[in-house]
């Protein structure tokens, strides 16, 4: 070998037995090397398995893999066809207790690298094999933090808490919050003072899981934290905690603003007096001097203004029981006239409160019509609070009540899928109405609505849309029908 590297001009190659008698040194070296190469290739000896570390067996799967047709479609989706339906495929499979077959896991885990939103869905559908595989590739380690990790399932978790990245530590903590909130709180308390502010905020965010009055003391202390994000997060969590002193402080402020006038000649009404001052206590409880939206234009005139914005924030953070015990049932309260035209502030504040406190009765009352909420998003978000079987009808009501196309679209963009029943019918009516018209506004509506409808609309609507008499079908409509049919076939394969 040395002779070959240096060159036979500089070094004579060794002479081996059995090689031909060439006089050229280079030729002799090549001929000997050929002999050795063939000998070596023919005489390959197996490596000893005893010197190797076997790949540890994956845990036994509990869930069955999806049927073949569904697996074949998943392979097409992962190859790029209708890739946007991937979360729905994964959630549908996981919802039916099925898992992704092992051979498709690498392509699936690769998708999750670049798409964070996808990760919880992947974690649910990838099965135990998926987790096993993800642990072998650092590019896929994100999966470990993406799912509902149980502390017992995660022996590496305690170690991760000591030495992992912020993301990994927060993942471990949220898993622990899901099973043993007190243990998670105690664990965090040990290192709390030493953590940097962004880490404190990330860890405090995990308190959303398993939140209870036991956390109140910790959260109250966090209201005086050095980090602004930590303080805000603590206030937001306390606002969701029924029975906390925080709620009572807010109720105190709120009661000073709202008065029920029952002796008025036109029947009872609410009088509103927005707070005049912003004090340190209000700031400590998470209401900034300029709350988000305080410069937003109010329907029919100037901006919301800081005083009204403080009122909205206070109402959003006040336990709704405050009003139910003072004024009566929610649907009655929502219908009470408001003296001086402050209904928008009240109803918007209550809508946010109903969302924070996941209050079904209030959500139902506010969505029932007549509420003067000037943020369509706030109402659309409330749909998620309702029981699933009421959402469609309530959403259809919102759609019908939308004052104009712009608001309608803003609203629908916030209404999560699946759009079924009366809501699906209402959307199909809007789509078919827009597809028949040559105006720019109708075209704009069609394009924007098709873009949100393709993943949310009930696939059963495909045939009604396909039957639209306009010829040729506008491009957004044909794309929509194609996606709906794809989803319909996909869901059928998974059922």
């Amino acid at each position: 070998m040395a002779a070959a590297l240096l060159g036979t001009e500089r070094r004579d190659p060794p002479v081996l037995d059995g090689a031909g008698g060439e006089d050229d040194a280079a030729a002799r070296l090549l001929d000997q090397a050929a002999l050795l190469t063939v000998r070596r290739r023919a005489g390959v000896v197996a490596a000893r398995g005893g010197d190797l570390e076997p790949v540890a067996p994956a845990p036994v799967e509990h869930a069955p893999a999806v049927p073949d047709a569904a697996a074949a479609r998943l392979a097409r989706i992962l190859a790029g066809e209708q890739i946007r339906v991937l979360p729905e495929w994964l959630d549908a499979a996981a919802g039916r207790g099925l898992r992704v077959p092992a051979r498709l896991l690498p392509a699936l885990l690769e998708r999750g690298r670049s798409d964070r939103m996808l990760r919880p869905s992947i974690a649910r559908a990838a099965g135990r094999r998926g987790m096993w595989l993800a642990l072998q590739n650092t590019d896929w380690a994100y999966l470990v933090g993406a799912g509902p990790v149980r502390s017992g399932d995660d022996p590496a978790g305690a170690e991760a808490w000591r030495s992992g990245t912020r993301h990994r530590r927060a993942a471990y903590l949220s898993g622990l919050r899901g099973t043993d909130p007190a243990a998670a709180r105690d664990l965090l308390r040990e290192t709390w003072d030493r953590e940097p502010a962004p880490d404190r905020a990330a860890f405090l965010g995990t308190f959303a899981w398993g939140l209870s009055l036991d956390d109140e003391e910790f959260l109250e202390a966090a209201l005086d934290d050095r980090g602004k994000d930590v303080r805000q997060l603590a206030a937001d969590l306390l606002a969701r905690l029924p029975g906390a002193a925080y709620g009572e402080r807010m109720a105190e402020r709120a009661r000073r603003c709202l008065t029920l006038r029952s002796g008025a000649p036109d029947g009872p009404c609410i009088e509103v007096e927005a707070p005049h001052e912003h004090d340190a206590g209000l700031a400590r409880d998470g209401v900034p001097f300029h709350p988000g939206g305080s410069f937003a234009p109010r329907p029919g005139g100037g901006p919301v203004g800081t005083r009204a914005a403080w009122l909205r924030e206070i109402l959003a953070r006040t336990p709704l029981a405050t009003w139910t015990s003072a004024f009566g049932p929610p649907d009655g309260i929502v219908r009470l006239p408001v003296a001086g035209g402050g209904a928008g502030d009240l109803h918007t504040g209550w809508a946010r409160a109903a969302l924070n406190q996941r209050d079904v009765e209030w959500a139902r009352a506010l969505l029932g019509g007549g509420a003067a909420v000037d943020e369509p998003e706030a109402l659309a978000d409330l749909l998620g609070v309702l029981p699933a079987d009421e959402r469609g009808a309530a959403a259809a009501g919102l759609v019908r009540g939308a004052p104009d196309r712009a608001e309608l679209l803003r609203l629908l963009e916030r209404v999560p899928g699946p759009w079924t029943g009366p809501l699906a019918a209402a959307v199909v009516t809007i789509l078919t109405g827009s597809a028949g018209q040559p105006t720019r506004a109708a075209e704009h509506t069609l394009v924007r609505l098709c873009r949100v409808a393709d993943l949310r609309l009930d696939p059963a609507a495909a045939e009604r849309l396909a039957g639209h008499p306009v010829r040729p079908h506008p491009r957004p409509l044909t794309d929509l029908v194609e996606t709906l049919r794809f989803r319909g076939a996909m869901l059928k394969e998974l059922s």
Partner: protein
Amino acid sequence: MSDPAGIFGFVRDLGTGERRGRRVDDGLAELDRWLRDQVAHGLARAERAPYRLWDDAARRLVDAQAGALAARVRALAGVPREPGWPGRLLAEYALLRLLVRAHRRRDALPAGLHGTVRARVGFPVARDAVLRDGERVRDRWWVLGTRDAAQDVLTARRVWLRGERTGRPALLLTFTGPNDAPEPAPPPGARFEAELAYYPGALPLRALVAERLAPDETGPGAPPGTSVQGFLDEHADAVAHDPWLDRYPATLTDVRLARDATGALFAVDEPGDALPLRGPVPWTLLAVAGGERVTLAGEWTPRGLRPLTTWHPAEGAVPL
């Protein structure tokens, strides 16, 4: 589909065998000088050598109408970027010279080896001649796997087969031009009853489907395989027939994956014999096997086993 004879535009010369033979002789003599030069001046130069070094030599071989040799020389340009390259480069140069010498002594070689040497140099064999004179073997052929490789402007597709009753390996090699629609690859794990016609050679491997007797069957079940030692014995015999052999199909039964201290993967069989895997981390194989024993088919090369297909009881045949 076209025969490799078509690739290099030699077809028109097929009738003028004598002239072609002289050109090949001259080309190989020049290759021999070039090889001896490389070794005389030292292989160490190759580490910094431009691609041109090999490309020029390959071009001269194309001009000499030794197409297969040219491709082999051109492929060497990548070797100096691999770990352990000096040994590999010397081995390849040595085998090239062995081919030159074998070709020089072709009239003294047995017919089979003569055929092998001609094929390795790049003499085309007409499809009709293979169908007319080639050895015919009828069997139920398992598709072990398919590999597409870019070769100049063409795509070379290797489909590896193994006969169920005879245990014979076979290679269906086809070339597709940039404008041809690629033929659908047979699904790995499929099997079909057919009569193959082998190309001439000391180690019959490359073949044509002479007569297909039944359509593809798919379904559960894995192809018949061997242990690691069984495969190495078969491979040693194959190399003894064709010393230039650089790809040979392996089907290993009941292997599980293992890692050495550096993390490199191996396939280990039941008795504990192991073969190194080659190429990028085979994530699909890892996912499907999940640490259990599987049947694994691959291309064995001097640098390790390149996985092609694995068979799993629940997942069936999975291309890798």
